[in-house]
């Protein structure tokens, strides 16, 4: 979904919420609508984390079956629908990687290429409020902290793997993450 005016965004959000509610009521047409509205985005997440097209499609399939089963537990007062869906996709893709021990498949630039995950200036300008704040706060962190957080989140790396990949002692990586997360929380405001 491209960025649009905030009116269009809240309309999309309402559409998505009502589609999730429809799916929660057991109507497959609701899930189909959720799929049409979000499959490109969720597939992008699976593809990025699995780094394998076929596997990403298998994971995406599981994601929508999970959405179908969990739709009734979705609470739009606690999370935006797209964040809720994106996290289900992210976690499913990370689980797949762990089960497959696919860490060797991660390109070497995983740590070095973190800049690739950095948003374009446009995205920063047009992104919704939450995303903009998160990106600004991440940017404020020392680069090794934000880099470790991004790698852990976007690639599903564990402490051990982060340490190996960055050739850094485990304790150092842990303190990067913990300090980074603490500062991130402060920057974003508690809650």
């Amino acid at each position: 979904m491209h960025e649009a005016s905030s009116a269009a965004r809240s309309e999309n959000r309402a559409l998505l919420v009502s589609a999730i509610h429809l799916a929660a009521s057991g109507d497959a047409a609701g899930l189909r609508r959720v799929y049409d509205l979000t499959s490109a985005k969720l597939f992008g997440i699976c593809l990025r984390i699995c780094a394998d097209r076929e596997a990403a499609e298998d994971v995406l399939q599981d994601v929508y079956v999970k959405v179908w089963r969990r739709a009734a537990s979705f609470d739009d007062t606690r999370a935006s629908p797209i964040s809720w869906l994106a996290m289900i996709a992210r976690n499913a893709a990370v689980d797949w990687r762990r089960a497959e021990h696919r860490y060797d498949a991660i390109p070497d630039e995983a740590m070095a290429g973190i800049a690739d995950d950095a948003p374009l200036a446009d995205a920063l300008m047009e992104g919704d409020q939450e995303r903009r704040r998160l990106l600004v706060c991440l940017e404020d962190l020392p680069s090794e902290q934000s880099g470790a957080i991004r790698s852990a989140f976007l690639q599903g790396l564990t402490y051990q793997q982060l340490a190996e990949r960055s050739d850094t002692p485990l304790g150092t990586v842990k303190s990067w993450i913990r300090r980074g997360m603490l500062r991130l929380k402060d920057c974003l405001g508690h809650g």
Partner: protein
Amino acid sequence: MVDTAEEPNRGALAAELALGLLEGEERAQGLRLCISNPAFAREVEGWSTRLAPLLDTLPPGLPSSRVWNAVAARIGDKPERPSLNRLRAWRAGALTSGAIAAGLALFIVSRPIEPPARIPMAVSQLTGTGEAQVLAISYDPQKGVLRVGAQKTPGDGKGPELWVIPQDGVPRSLGMMTHEGGAMPVDPAMRPLLAADATLAITMEDPTTAPHAAPSGLPVMTGKISII
């Protein structure tokens, strides 16, 4: 080892759990805490919510249609309907294959004799890509039967499958047509779809696997339904 579960480190543990940094016993401990301590579980969820917008920065991708087909099968939905994107491509193709778009002349005929009362009847003239290919189809809503003219055989083992595309844009198969034409009964579930402004289309499909859930290629003929 790490002092994960101790009180001062709860906050860090929640973040680590949300990020998926932990393994083995540390992870198991964190998950147990999630179950026994709702406040901690909310904290983990809070981290997920905070970080989720980062996923917005990843470029989207287009999954193949097998994904939805498999999802639909697993949730017990009717088998596959084409994804919107594929459908858009299909319709765009149909509209740009020049002859079709240009030749979309509808023709309306009066119902021949008999009707005791005014009974609506749907008619469509389908215009094809080939030269001077025209096919008239009429529909008798009382009997639920389509009457189709004869057409040429392509001779590649494929046969013409007739589709109705209602306002939602999703093609539904009405079944394979015989080359010699004639009466074609319509499944009662499909009858309400045969309404004014719905589009009829014909694609060439493998008759041995018909009816299909979605067209496999561009239509060779399309036309709109008019009620007369």
